[in-house]
């Protein structure tokens, strides 16, 4: 295999991995991650970040959305100023305490995890 051929294969592989295929995990992991809010679901149903990491709850649908912790401890409203984020609206929340949070869109889900909902896990390093 020549260098160019290897580059071709590598480019395709990187592009496929970076864009995420249909078979990818439903878990979003990273230190500072972006979670798209589609109509009417979160792109990932589980998010894992380390303590000190952040989640950008990003409006990616035509309909308004938000993300609110079922225990009431945080909400995109706290940083965005409204429970209605439309396409292109962003709400970045930094999490400094470890914990597991069920979150949901108050417009298309509920605190019991029905409808548009997910779980955020904020982990201690090495946790």
């Amino acid at each position: 295999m020549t260098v160019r051929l290897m580059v071709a294969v590598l480019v395709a592989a990187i592009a496929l991995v970076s864009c995420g295929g249909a078979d990818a995990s439903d878990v979003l992991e990273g230190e500072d991650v972006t979670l798209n809010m589609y109509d009417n679901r979160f792109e990932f149903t589980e998010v894992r970040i380390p303590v000190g990491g952040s989640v950008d709850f990003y409006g990616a649908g035509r309909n308004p959305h938000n993300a609110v912790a079922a225990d009431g401890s945080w909400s995109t409203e706290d940083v965005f100023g409204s429970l209605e984020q439309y396409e292109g609206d962003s709400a970045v929340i930094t999490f400094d305490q470890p914990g597991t949070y069920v979150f949901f869109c108050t417009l298309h889900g509920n605190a019991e995890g029905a409808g548009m909902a997910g779980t955020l896990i904020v982990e201690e390093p090495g946790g």
Partner: protein
Amino acid sequence: MGFRWALLLAAGAIALAACAGPPRGEPSPAAVGDETTQAPAEWTGVTRRVPADYSTIQSAVDAADPGDLVLIDRGTYREAVSVTTPGITIRGVDRNEVVIDGEFERGNGIEVLFADGVSIENLTSMNHTVNGFFWTGVRGYRGSYLTAINNGDYGIYAFDSGDGLFEHSYASGSPDAAFYIGQCNPCDAVITDSVGEYSGLGYSGSNASTELYLVKNTFRYNGAGISPNSWDGELLPPVENVVIVGNLIHDNGTADFPYKTAQWIVQGNGILLTGSENSIASRNVVMNHPMNGIFLHPNIDKNVWMAGDNVVEENLVAGSGLADITMAGPSQDGNCFEANEVDATMPAALETLQPCDGLRFPALYEVGSLTSLFGRLVERNLGLDDEIFYGEMPHPDAQPQMPGGDAADVRPAVNVFAEARPDIESIGLPDVPASLEVTQQKGVNLMGVTFASVIGGFLGLYAYVLPLALYAAWVVIALWEIIRRDDLSTGAGVGWMLAILVIPFLGVIGYYLLGKSQIPAAYRWTMLAGGMGVYVLFLVLGLVIGGIA
């Protein structure tokens, strides 16, 4: 370019194409034909009265067991109701005087979350920031004799659900759509005997496919009438197998309406088949639209969804500003048009060239009409539109009550579609009210480019009409020069002529660059690169401002 570099580009393109699919996630089983239901088929016999037994609708709903009736007395209820108990029926004693008012503060009037078989009947929901009535993730839903007024997203809305019916209902003042069914295949759903008006769209259905019937409805005074559409933002594209029969669709795009971007773009059209496949629009009356009566067109999203194999027949279409029926491309083949009563189509002679029976041109379409959509998108992104607050839309007159009122049979929404599936063959053209006359005059257009939108007309001229006119000039000038040249043999002259005539664009460009044309180089370059460069610049600017590139 070497083979391996071509391979590199191809690999990248394939990888990008893989990225372009719909976003991750799975539809609910209810939305893809799973007939399992948690709802009981019969009423329990228990009635929970609001406010006699429970002070709020929410408290009655929370107390209800599957199969119960929640009966609401006259009054204004300032709440947002969330339902997670299957099989309950929520009924108002008076459609016009039982009102859930969101006061432009609360999201949904009534939301039904993953609770199968919930019926909502005979009441009004208004002034909610999102939806009037909303079902999601359910098998079995019914909305009967509902009124939804001035809600900020949709009036009456079912998403990711199957086995449903909206009947004898009214919705107005929603920026997205009065009625919406989305993300299901098979939907097993019917919307009938209902009215949608003063909204962005009368009906919208993204990726809502198969066994979906829109029959005997009226959609008027919206931005556009109805739009089954394929869209990458929700699961299950493309939209297919939608049946649109016996509807009265008129005067959309002629009055003030609230809207979002998509609705602003498509304003002035009656029936839009937006990237739709295998759908039927038959025996509808479609009147008074500034753009097109019936408009088949692609939707350019992450993917390009092209209309194909649609049947448009026996419709009465009149009073269209651009054309009564327009087939815009690129399209798939198989679209057919027959026995429609129309004055003009685009392309012309559509019924002759694309009949439903007999020989058919493959994928006959035009593209000029798309420039108006493009122009509206640019207008919107530049903030040149005048946004209208949905709360200011007019309220309707009192709407008809549900027969039987509070004593009507209580029926959880189980096997709804089996009972509601219409006999399409028995449905004819709708009656046209005597007051409804053709008022829309045919507008000016140039190769499908209209000037209803100033920017659309500008872009259409500079990015579509003038480039074609310039190309025609290139060809004429080149042929004229070849005829007059003494330095070319007859064989060489004929060869260049054939190249110019047979190979679009490249033939004539090749002649000017390689054919030793005697036109001074400065003129040739001005003609080739100068003119086209300006037009391409306009196109690129439009794409960037429009957010497409």
